[in-house]
Each structure stands twice: as structure tokens, then as C-alpha cells.
């Protein structure tokens, strides 16, 4: 079976415009959540989010590109450029045919939908821009990445709500492992911070009005974020032959379905995904020293996730660290697993565990070491990254140092 290594990473999110800025913010426990700024925000009851503030598309893209690229595609292309530049790869000939793109997103071009619904329903216009469909479709980002970098292998988009990115990265890994591709560009993106995007979430009454405090007894809901993270997954021998710098190895992946409830999480479903990822990685539970939690800050997720970790790890659950970086970059829905993988790679490469900020009060139902408020220096060799989606679809990745 082929081995998979990561040879590039890129991002843009509320914590930073690139990987170094983002990791610095994570080390410092910086919060990217603030007042939302967009049209009609005064008609919302939820007015906070982890928004990429001060972002001007015109600084990066020309007029024709902006006409075709929704915000989620723009974020993806910015992150992909950083990742592919770091990898040093150029795609042509046989490598181009054996390289693809699998990305996660939940909402796709939500801003495009929002703007055009407003235009036809509220403003009563009877004509929309001709590119609305190619701009809003969920696979637009993956397709533009394939076009920009000449990637002609297997390419598609995965939409499994909050687990989209983890499912996408799991697919990318399995394709390389099975010999279907040598290089996969993978990760995810979300740009749902617009009136319609938040209004829909308000309805479920699971959002916090003031802060994201995962695992804290006084947590009162999730806070949305936006942005993207993209990685270069590469077959190990291919990376070695060209002397590429290897950031980490992707060693395991598992996915499960709760088959139970459309919104409530299940301990068993989550636990089976965690155990499955370790089994796939041939990793003993005792080796895992850090888990990047799904940790949404909702009452239901955090206690279920802690119970699942206790179930999967037994006594070792008390010895490992589990933090939710959503407290800093918000919940990027379909893009969240990708941004969270940055924290996993930082743990493996730099021995820095990103904290769960906003932590104020211990909760007996979340009695694990959640690395409260302050980053920690610990040498780490094996990590997991959890994602548990609405609909009961769970996806867990396992990584090791290389």
C-alpha cells in the first residue's frame, strides 16, 4: 500500500491570510471572532462570526475572475496557491494526468445565491448575471483549482456539512493509497457569512450571540467562520524522489454514519470513526497524544464528543490533549476540517498544541484535558482530527510525524 505525505499547506481564514499568520494566532490563542459586517446584518439576531475582515477580492483577482469566482472559490484559490507554491510542484504531462483535486464545501457559492435571490425577489429584477450558475455551484472551487494548475486526474467536491473537508481529505488519501493518483490537492472552503447563510442557522437556535466556548460549562452555541485551507497530498516515493520537504504523514482515515438523527450527534458513531481511523493507521490508542476536536461549542456536540473519546480511548483519554480551535477561527462548516488540520500539523512539526480559548468553567461532562486558553509545548508524534456532521456523518483523520 502506498504512503501519503503532505508537502504543502495554504490557508486564508479569520486568523490570518496565510499559514504563518494563522499558526502564530493559534499559538497566541488569538480570537478571530468579531462583529459581522455585511448587508442586512441588523436584521439578524446572531451578529458575530469569524469573518475574513478587510478582504478585497480586487487585490488578488481581476475583473473577469471576480465575475466567475464566488468568495468560497476565491478563498480556495488563495489557499491552493500557497500550498502548491510550498510543494514546489509544477503539473504537466504524466504528472498532470495523475494529479487531481478533491475539496469539501457545504454551501458552495452562498454569497452568489444570496446576492442574486435578493436581486430577483427583493429588488424585483428579472435578469441575473449570466455566470450565476458556474459561480455558485459546489464544484466551482475544485474546477478552478484544476484549471489554474493543470490537474487532469480525479477531481470532485464532497458535501457532508461539517465533515466535508475531512471526507474530502480522506478521499484524496485513499486515491493515492490505491494508486489512482500521485498528487491530490485537497482541503476545503466555506463562505457562508451572508444574510441568508446566518439567517438559516439562526432558525436552529444553536448559535451563540456572544462567544464560542467549546467544552466550557457555560458554552452556549457555535459561531460560524469562513475561509479555506488546502493541502498537497503526495505519494511518498514521489515526494522522496524529488527531495520534497515533508510536513507530516497521513496514516489513517475512517468514516461512519450514525443512522440515527438528522441533527443530534451519537457517541457510538463518533467513537467508531475514531477507533476506525486508528485501526486504519495501525496506531495504538496510547500513541495518540493530541486530538483536534470537532468541538463546536454546542451543548450536544461537546459532551457527546468527550464521551466518544472516553469510549474509544478508555483510561488513555485522561492522558491525551484535545482542543477545539473553532474557539479562534469559528466553525467553517464544510471548510472546518481543513483549517483544523493546520493545527494538527503544527502539533506534529513544532510541538505546539493550539488551545481551546474562551474556556471559563469546567464541565463534568467534558472532563478531558482541553488545553484551556493557553497553547502548550509538547512533543507529539501521532494526532487525530475529528469531524462530525449534521446528518450523523463522521470522518476522522490520523496523522504522524515524518
Amino acid at each position: 500500500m502506498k504512503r501519503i505525505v503532505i508537502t504543502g499547506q495554504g490557508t486564508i481564514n479569520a486568523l490570518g491570510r496565510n499559514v504563518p499568520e494563522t499558526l502564530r494566532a493559534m499559538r497566541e490563542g488569538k480570537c478571530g471572532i468579531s462583529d459581522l459586517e455585511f448587508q442586512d446584518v441588523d436584521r439578524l439576531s446572531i451578529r458575530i462570526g469569524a469573518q475574513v475582515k478587510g478582504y478585497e477580492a480586487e487585490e488578488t483577482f481581476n475583473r473577469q475572475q471576480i465575475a466567475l469566482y464566488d468568495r468560497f472559490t476565491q478563498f480556495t484559490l488563495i489557499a491552493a496557491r500557497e500550498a502548491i507554491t510550498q510543494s514546489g510542484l509544477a503539473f504537466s504531462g504524466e504528472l498532470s494526468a495523475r494529479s487531481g483535486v478533491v475539496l469539501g464545501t457545504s454551501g458552495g457559492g452562498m454569497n452568489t445565491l444570496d446576492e442574486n435571490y435578493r436581486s430577483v425577489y427583493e429588488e424585483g429584477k428579472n435578469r441575473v448575471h449570466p455566470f450565476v450558475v458556474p459561480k455558485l455551484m459546489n464544484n466551482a472551487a475544485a474546477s478552478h483549482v484544476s484549471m489554474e494548475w493543470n490537474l487532469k486526474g480525479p477531481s470532485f467536491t464532497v458535501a457532508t456539512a461539517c465533515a466535508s473537508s475531512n471526507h474530502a481529505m480522506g478521499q484524496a488519501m485513499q486515491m493515492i493509497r490505491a494508486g489512482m493518483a500521485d498528487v491530490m490537492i485537497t482541503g476545503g472552503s466555506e463562505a457562508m457569512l451572508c444574510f441568508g447563510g446566518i439567517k438559516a442557522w439562526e432558525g436552529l437556535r444553536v448559535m451563540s450571540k456572544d462567544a464560542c466556548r467549546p467544552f466550557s460549562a457555560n458554552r452556549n452555541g457555535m459561531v460560524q467562520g469562513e475561509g479555506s485551507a488546502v493541502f498537497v497530498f503526495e505519494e511518498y516515493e514521489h515526494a522522496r524522489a524529488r527531495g520534497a520537504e515533508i510536513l507530516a504523514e497521513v496514516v489513517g482515515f475512517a468514516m461512519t454514519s450514525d443512522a440515527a438523527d438528522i441533527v443530534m450527534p451519537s457517541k457510538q458513531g463518533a467513537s467508531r470513526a475514531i477507533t476506525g481511523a486508528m485501526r486504519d493507521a495501525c496506531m495504538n490508542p496510547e500513541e495518540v497524544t493530541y486530538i483536534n476536536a470537532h468541538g463546536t461549542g454546542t451543548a450536544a456536540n461537546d459532551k457527546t464528543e468527550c464521551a466518544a473519546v472516553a469510549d474509544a480511548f478508555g483510561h488513555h483519554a485522561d492522558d491525551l490533549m484535545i482542543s477545539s480551535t473553532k474557539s479562534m477561527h469559528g466553525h467553517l462548516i464544510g471548510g472546518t476540517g481543513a483549517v483544523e488540520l493546520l493545527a494538527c500539523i503544527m502539533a506534529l512539526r513544532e510541538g505546539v498544541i493550539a488551545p481551546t480559548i474562551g474556556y471559563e468553567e469546567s464541565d463534568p461532562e467534558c472532563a478531558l484535558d482541553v488545553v484551556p486558553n493557553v497553547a502548550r509545548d509538547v512533543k507529539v508524534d501521532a494526532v487525530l482530527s475529528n469531524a462530525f456532521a449534521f446528518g450523523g456523518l463522521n470522518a476522522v483523520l490520523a496523522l504522524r510525524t515524518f
Partner: protein
Amino acid sequence: MSDTIQDRVIAIIAEQAVLEPGDVNLDQTLEDLGIDSLGLVESIFAIEEAFDISVPFNANDPKDSEFDISSVASIIRAVEGLVADQAA
């Protein structure tokens, strides 16, 4: 509309529980009536629409919300309060 607030709230809860309004008792909890978390959120939405009010309720912390959902009677009282506040 001649129905009292109580009648209208009970009608909304009964519909959610798939019961006749006459089978809903004031001292019952939503759990007694078989209404789960999604059913609760849907009932609150129906109440907001019916009375044109905004109900302060966060599913993360139902017990701490200002809106008391501990029984059918408490929900009716809370709705009456919100309707009165709005009229004031």
C-alpha cells in the same frame, strides 16, 4: 380571533405531538408529549409566527433560557408574557 392564547398554544403543541388539543394537559412536559429537540424548535417557530413575537430561546441551554419550557402551562405563561410585553 376569539381563541385564547392558551388555546392557540395548545393547538400548536398538539399538532407537533400529533394529538387532539383535548389530549394535551397543562401539567405535561414536552417530553411527556413525545416532542424532541427538533419538535421543540419547530413549536417555538410556530408560536413566533402565530403571535408575531420573538421567543428568547437557545437550544444549547433550554433551562437557562428566559423562556420557560418546563411544562405546557409554563410555555403558555411565557407566551402570555411576551404578548403582553409587545402590546405594552
